[in-house]
């Protein structure tokens, strides 16, 4: 299949052969802790629903949501643990790549010459584990933003410096 006669496609930098950098192992703890909190809220909600029984339904309809939520919680834990293995990023000379997803895979590439600004965030749980997340914003809007979670604050800073330098360098050219 021919796309473009001008550039030989085989010579283009290929994303599939990249060496990816995994996230910090302790980030798995953050993910699991978050999962536990949201699961507790959900289970508490559905348990309260089961005991209060606000509607005149047959008892079976009160058991069903309970089972569904339990199933979902189990599934979400598997997904979180499995999914962690697939989260990784790679830095190239002119862009940054982040991938994630165990079943539903996702790889985003953001060229440095389209970066609007870079931001480092840290939530309360992340602070406990000394982790940060790096957000790279483009004009592409919400879906186009790239986020690398689970990296050391120092790494986040280094990455930020690197990207900012690259974007400025691009402008000077």
């Amino acid at each position: 299949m021919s796309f473009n006669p001008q550039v030989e496609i085989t010579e283009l930098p290929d994303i599939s052969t990249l060496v990816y950098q995994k996230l910090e192992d302790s980030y798995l703890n953050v993910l699991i802790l978050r999962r536990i909190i949201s699961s507790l809220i959900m289970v508490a909600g559905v348990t309260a629903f089961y005991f209060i029984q606000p509607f005149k339904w047959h008892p079976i309809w009160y058991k069903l949501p309970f089972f569904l939520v339990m199933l979902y919680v189990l599934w979400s834990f598997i997904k979180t643990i499995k999914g962690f293995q697939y989260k990784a990023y790679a830095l190239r000379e002119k862009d940054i790549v982040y991938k994630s997803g165990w079943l539903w895979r996702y790889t985003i590439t953001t060229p440095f010459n389209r970066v609007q600004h870079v931001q480092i965030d840290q939530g309360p749980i992340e602070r406990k584990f000394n982790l940060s997340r790096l957000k790279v914003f483009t004009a592409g809007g919400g879906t186009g933003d790239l986020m690398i979670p689970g990296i050391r604050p120092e790494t986040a800073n280094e990455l930020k410096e690197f990207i900012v330098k690259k974007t400025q360098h691009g402008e000077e050219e």
Partner: protein
Amino acid sequence: MAKKSSHDFSQPTRQSYVAILIITYNLYKVIVRNLIPLFIAFLIGGSAKSKGGYIFYSIMVIAGIAAIYSIIAFFKYYFYLKEDHIIVNKGVLRKTKLEIPFERIQSINFEQNVIHRLFGVVKLNMDTAGSAKEEVQLNALNIDLAKRLRSHILSNRVIAPTNESQEELQVEEDVREEIFRLSIPQLIKVGVTANHLRSGGLIIIFFFYIYDSLEDFGLNVVEKLEEYTPVFQQVARSLFIVLFLVVLFFIVSFFISIINTILRYYNLRMFRRGDGFVIDSGLFNRKQYAAKDSKIQMVGWSQNLLQGLARIYSIGLKQASSIENSLKSTFVAVGLSSQNISKIIDYLYGIRAEEFQSMDWQSVDRYYLFRRLYYSTVAAIIATIIIVFSQDWMDLIYVLVFFVVAVMASFLNYKKKKYGLSEHFLSVKGGTFGHSVELIEQYKIQSVSLTSTPFQRRRELASLRIMTASGLLQIPDIPSTIALRLKNRLIYTIEKSQADWM
């Protein structure tokens, strides 16, 4: 240029006095809109008579306060230009000072309602690339003054203008070439072929709005309606009455879309001015939009089934947008022929526009079709199971109609889904009963992502999501090797490009 700037914009300037009238009018509109449900509630509640005087005085007080507020707002609002910034001071209770650099201003658009036209003023909107908070809106400004302000801002936006572009910008003020004008027969065509389902949707939204407002005022609509439930059940059983209601719904929708079209697009004109486009349209409210070529990120044109028969298109020139004002920044023209479309593309892209004619179009994988057929089948099966349990066999007709339409739509959609790549462009075609085309210059892309589901991987497929400053483009279900190559190619083009995307 100097002899034209008789007004010194560096001095604080107020809006035209007509602004007081317009601010008051806008306030009254908001107040009345919010009070309608209250009136309905009073009428239905039957207490209008006993509290009539009380209501009258409340209204007078509210109206008086609104008028005073408008006058204060008018005197507190002024703007001036300082170097390459526009500075706006405003605020009745809390003072705000906005300082916006010219280069952040995407476009300056004029709008006129009946009051504006009576007094020869315009409403001026400045769209910025930033958040909605930074939008500048001048309620009323003398037309000449507004035009001078616009050309002053737009021509001083370039930081270091070369002699050539300076000349061009001066020309831009007056010289504009008409690309397209919507005649009355064409306007009717646009009205007749409009998306009547959307107008129908408006009716439904209106009923929900009334329902919601009545609930807010403590009227239990559900209880009232329940009294009529046997009637509704009777109605639903009778295919004839259902058909009659459907036809009635379509007739009402039809007239709503015709009226809406005439109000919005009466005497629509599109011009080429300098290195941008200008469009104005409207019967009572005349709106004018201007868009510079450099700000246009993507071009999309489409036609629905009826417009396909009438051979007319609508075109959207999509500008960079922040999330808050994503709808506003699309510049839309309707009732165009395919020649008009080519002309616009030619203006916008010059010689490169030829690439579009010789684009190499690729289809998406058949899995795209299978997935759609699968969803429709599952939905139909679930509906059938419910019908079997409830024994309402008549409903099977609806399920059957849904299924046939869904299958047909899936096939049509699959046939029309195509993507094409040329040296400078990327384009995605689509549509179900109609057609749509999106065209973007590759260097305007912001970032690219590749996604795949387990089902796609089993067939070695993937989807591409292409993020631009004016929205998302998707190429679904293509072989993963091709998707990867395409992604590499696009990223390479972006990284190689030195041109400013905006």
